[in-house]
């Protein structure tokens, strides 16, 4: 399964990628929404794990909407440092699996992604 990680925190991206690669996923990571959209062109992710707040003007929710427009089957998992009602509003219409609050429960996240892979297979 192709997973795109989007977080402006480099360490988070790096280690989450290590976890997923160890479990056999095809992983790409991006530090900004712009970079993610560019990668998605060729990579065509099935799952996006994205931080809600990104720094370059386009936030995670907006980016997910743009990606979903291209691939309506795209699944989305959000991570956020500060969950809010605003986020619930912004993710309406997306195939959002879960919103994880940072620091994330890594085992729960990995279990959920495994579930998605089984579902897809």
């Amino acid at each position, binding site marked *: 399964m192709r997973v795109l990680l989007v977080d*402006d*925190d480099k*360490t*988070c991206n790096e*280690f*989450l990628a*290590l*976890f997923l690669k*160890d479990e056999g996923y095809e992983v790409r990571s991006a530090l900004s929404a712009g970079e993610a959209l560019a990668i998605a062109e060729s990579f065509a992710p099935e799952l996006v794990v994205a931080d809600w*707040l990104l*720094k370059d*003007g386009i936030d995670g929710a907006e980016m997910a909407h743009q990606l979903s427009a291209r691939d309506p089957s795209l699944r989305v998992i959000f*991570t*956020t*440092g*500060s969950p*809010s009602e605003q986020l619930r509003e912004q993710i309406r219409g997306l195939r959002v699996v879960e919103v994880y*609050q*940072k*620091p*994330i429960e*890594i*085992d729960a996240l990995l279990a959920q992604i495994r579930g998605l892979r089984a579902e897809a297979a």
Partner: protein
Amino acid sequence: MREAPLALDTAVEKANILLVDDRADKLLAIETVLEELGQNIVKATSGMEALRLLLRQDFAVILLDVSMPGLDGFETAALIRQRARSENTPIIFVTSINTTDTHVSRGYSLGAVDYIFSPVEPEILRAKVGVFIDLYRKTEQVRYQSELLRREAEERAANLEVRLHSLLNHLDIGVFRATESGSITEANPAFTRLLGFAVPDDVAGMRLEQFLHPGEREGFRLVSGARDIRFVRQDGREVWVQLTLTVNPERNGQVIEGLAEDVTDRKAREHDLKHLNETLERRVFERTEALRISQEHLRRSERLASLGTLAAGIAHEINNPLNAIVITARYALKNPKFDRDKAFETICNEAMRGGEIVRGILRFAKEEKVTKTPTDLNELIKHTRDLAKTYLGSNRLSVELELAENLPPLMLNSTAIEQVLFNLINNAAEASQGETSVVVRTHSGSEVVRVEVRDNGPGIPEDTLPRIFDPFFSTKRSAGGTGLGLSICHGIILEHGGSITVDSQLGQGTVFSIQLPAASVAQGTMKEAAV
């Protein structure tokens, strides 16, 4: 003059001439001579008869025979002289030609004005009597005119008195006279009414001081001058009186003349006006205070709104390093072959990042008790420039100063403002890749002092500009920025009642402008004085 002068009448009226002689032939002879003068001739045949006639009328001249039986001429003359009314009437003695000098001098001593010797020379007699007639006429004229003048003066005085009396009676201002000790002797109706009496006689003999309000008695003196003073009327009502006294010397000591006007209404208006002014001042103060409080609330709510943004930012910023720590640790635990040193290094770095963010937050959120002192902004800028060159490296940073002269001292927390200036210079230095030229300018306006920090760096993109003062907004996160620097600057300037704005053109540079209120010195001083 309304009346015709008497001179005209005396010219028409005949003067009386009295002839006294016991001999009818002599009387007739003189009468005949004097008839030509055209005057009124009265004849008496004895001294007694002459005296009787003199009781009834006045004569211009008396021709008196010296030798008469009974009262002779001298005796008659002496009696005539004794009466006041006739003491100055000219007497001409008529005597025979052979009288002695002694005889003549006696006549003069008895008040004769002339002698005529008989038999008379008609021309001489007429001429002499004519002189006295003229004299009489002129005397009469003078007498009449002086009488006329006297009467006119009396009339005018009487008129003046009537007018003054009327004026005093109708005047609405109390007028009175009092003795040296303040006992009222005269008063007009207005003064009488002022004291609560019906007629002026009621107040005569009363003492002025007995009408004074008890609170006014001490310190009251019967001396010249005007004063506003409270009276208590006969009916117990309290009135304000403008009392003007004049102490004048008189024959027996001194007299006090006074004016008294009821100014109770004016006093009430003054009181109302004073009250109104006080109310107005109080309202202005209350409004100002309310405005100050609402501004305070506004600033606090702005701060709270800013805190809301801040809280979300804090959660995000703190949770990111925590997230990185957790993921790294979990990964290292799960994979014993993973490079532990690398994991620990990462965890330490992330923890330090979290710590740095917490420190930034503390600086931002700290409710410092800001003490502001009058500060020379130009000096502060020079000092900060030196500091920046020391820390940022003078070889790649040039800071040019264009400082306005006669800059007023400003109420500043110099440490905080120095932090702002240092931050702006530091940003400018970091924005430029190569050599940086920063210009700091000050400009003194009537109400604000402006500081500009201009750099020749690459400029700030348009979409970034509006968020530049937001907490945790950073374009140099990779370089270790917390995104709090400019929002701290913004907070400090707001705290000083000023504002900070940014203007930037890509490829040309950026200008940060700080406006600080020039009036803050005076306000600060007042605040301090009030404490």
